[in-house]
Structures are given as structure tokens and as C-alpha cells.
């Protein structure tokens, strides 16, 4: 769907809250939180979820702004959700509309996207929830300001992994043992070789994942490993090695992407995919311990 300018005003005022709050059948969908100057009025030039004629607006909460939209509660009812449980088109539209608003706000300002599907009964509930976490929200916004998230996936040709495995000392030892064994003992030693190969494969995959992650982290201010390869069976045309997210200063994104390109070119049999720039979905935890 193409974006459209919302109706003005785009910043709610106290009178708007009174007019719009908690009328029967309506709720408030929260897209995320941004910083705002109390005097600032800014526009969010994309349409949000259905109903599209309900504008996406900034709800002022002190120095923060909640990006919200009035939505029909019926659209988030158990009946409606279950009626669409197998309807990929309906869910895709929901997901893409949510992401479109998040991307639009993130492109303009520091933004903490909320988990998808947060609907509040009243604007006052959102204001209260934000006030409760205000200090952490401000600190987190400061941490991600001027940054984008990039998603990276690394894949390897099974032959490249096998080459590493065959050089593993455990596999070499097990193979040497089997070469000198009697036929009867060799049968039992075969199990040992298989275990050594599985163990060496696991080590090789971990080494590849950690090596590539550490390399890319040099270009980022934070990173998160979302998934390593969970199998030591080298099936299929390629093996997924790593899925990770990185928080990168916008000005350094070209360097980050160049670093990724260099890494895959220097490692034979590697292939990478990346996606971005995204809002910092993976780096908005309000838990200070998780701030990397």
C-alpha cells in the first residue's frame, strides 16, 4: 500500500485525548516510542493498520512520544484472529502495515519499536506504561539513536565444512586407529569415527559462526546471535551457519557491508545475505544487563 499523509493534527493534544479515548469498540495500537520536544509537531506520512483513515499520531508523554493509532477492537478479537488463523494474506498485510509505520518513523528519528500486536484500551494506559519505564526508554533511545539494525545470514558449502572436519585431529586419530584395526574391531571403531566427525563438524560450525560474528562486530556497536546451525548433518546444497543482527551507526553502514563482503570473499565456500536497514528491533531491551 502506498503511504498517505494522515489528517492533521499529527500530535495529540489533551482535548484530543478526551475526544478519542476509550469509546466503545475502540482501542489504541502502539507502534513504538520516540523522543520528542514538547513543542514539536511532526508528521508520520504513512497509513497504518486498518482502518487506514485513522491517522498514525504521536501521543506526547513528557519528552517521549508514543506512536499510536486508533483501531477497532473487533479487529483484534479472538474471533477475528482465529477466523484468519490460516489466512496468510491477512496476516501478511497486518505485518507489513505494522513494519511500514515502524520503518517510516525510524527513518526520521530515534525509535524503539514495540512488539507487534500491543493494543491498549485507552491512551492513558499507554501514557502510564511509558511513564513507568521512562528513564530506561530515554536511555535506550539514546543508545540506538543514529543507528540501524542489519540482519546477516551466513551459509557455507558443505564441502568447505568437510575440508575443516577432515583436518580435525580427533577425526585423523580415529581414522588412523581404524586403518590399523582388525576387521572385527574396525566395525566397532567405525562408530568412533562417526562420533569424531559429528564432534568435529559441530566445532567447525561453531568456529565459523563465532569467527564471522566477531569479525562483523568490529564494525558494529552491538550484535546479537539469533541462531547458529543446529545440526551437524551436512545435508542440502548449503549449510546455514549463522543468523545474527547488528546495530550499526548509520554513517558506518557502508563499512559494515564492505566488511561482510570481504569476509565472504576471503572464505571459500561462504555465502552471505543481509537485510536492512531496520529499526533496532533486536536492541531495544529495557533490561540494562542486556545492553551490549
Amino acid at each position, binding site marked *: 500500500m502506498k503511504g498517505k499523509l494522515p489528517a492533521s493534527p499529527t500530535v495529540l493534544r489533551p482535548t484530543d485525548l478526551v475526544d478519542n479515548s476509550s469509546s466503545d469498540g475502540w482501542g489504541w495500537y502502539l507502534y513504538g516510542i520516540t523522543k520528542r520536544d514538547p513543542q514539536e509537531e511532526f508528521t508520520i506520512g504513512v497509513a497504518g493498520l486498518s482502518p487506514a483513515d485513522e491517522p498514525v499520531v504521536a501521543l506526547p508523554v513528557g519528552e517521549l512520544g508514543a506512536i499510536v493509532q486508533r483501531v477497532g477492537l473487533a479487529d483484534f478479537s479472538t474471533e477475528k484472529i482465529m477466523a484468519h488463523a490460516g489466512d496468510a494474506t491477512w496476516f501478511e498485510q497486518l*505485518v507489513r502495515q505494522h513494519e511500514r509505520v515502524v520503518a517510516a518513523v525510524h527513518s526520521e528519528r530515534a525509535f524503539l519499536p514495540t512488539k507487534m500486536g500491543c493494543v491498549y484500551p485507552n491512551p492513558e494506559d499507554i501514557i502510564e506504561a511509558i511513564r513507568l519505564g521512562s528513564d530506561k526508554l530515554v536511555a535506550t533511545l539514546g543508545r540506538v539513536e543514529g543507528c540501524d539494525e542489519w540482519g546477516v545470514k551466513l551459509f557455507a558449502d558443505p564441502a568447505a565444512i568437510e575440508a575443516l572436519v577432515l583436518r580435525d585431529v580427533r577425526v585423523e586419530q580415529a581414522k588412523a586407529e581404524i586403518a590399523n584395526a582388525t576387521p572385527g574391531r574396525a566395525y566397532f571403531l567405525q562408530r568412533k569415527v562417526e562420533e569424531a566427525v559429528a564432534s568435529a563438524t559441530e566445532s567447525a560450525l561453531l568456529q565459523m559462526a563465532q569467527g564471522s560474528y566477531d569479525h562483523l562486530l568490529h564494525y558494529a556497536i552491538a550484535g546479537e546471535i539469533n541462531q547458529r546451525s543446529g545440526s551437524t548433518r551436512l545435508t542440502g546444497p548449503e549449510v546455514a551457519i549463522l543468523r545474527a543482527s547488528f546495530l550499526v551507526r548509520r554513517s558506518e553502514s557502508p563499512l559494515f557491508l564492505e566488511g561482510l563482503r570481504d569476509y565472504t570473499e576471503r572464505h571459500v565456500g561462504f555465502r552471505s545475505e543481509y537485510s536492512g536497514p531496520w529499526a533496532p528491533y533486536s536492541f531495544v531491551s529495557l533490561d540494562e544487563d542486556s545492553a551490549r
Partner: protein
Amino acid sequence: MTHNAQDVREVTLLEVLDRVIDRGVVLAGDITISVADVDLVYLGLRLMLCSVLRAEQLHYGASACERRDL
């Protein structure tokens, strides 16, 4: 956008789902309208994610849904 070598194409649904479903700020969840209803949103999305991942596993030969603990 998702990039693969020189290929540039529209963001895949999988990439978007990967982010919007489980990540993002969670404020005081108990004042949302209904945790059950919100969970139902995720149930629906997870069903869809699983079907998308099943398509992906045809390429990679592994159970993507299992890997993501769905």
C-alpha cells in the same frame, strides 16, 4: 531490503516476520486489552511463519520450524 550478492529485491515476508514477532520493546503487558488476544495475534503469526519456514526448508533440508522452537 534483502541483498544476496548483487541481487536486490523487496524485503521478504520472512525477514519482516523475523523481527516484528518476537522482538521489540515490551511495556507493562498486563494493561493491554487482553493478553490472550495479543497471544492470539502471535499464534496466527506463528502459524504463518511456520508455513513460510517450511517453504524455506525445501532449500536447506532442515526443519526450520523446529530450529526456531515454534
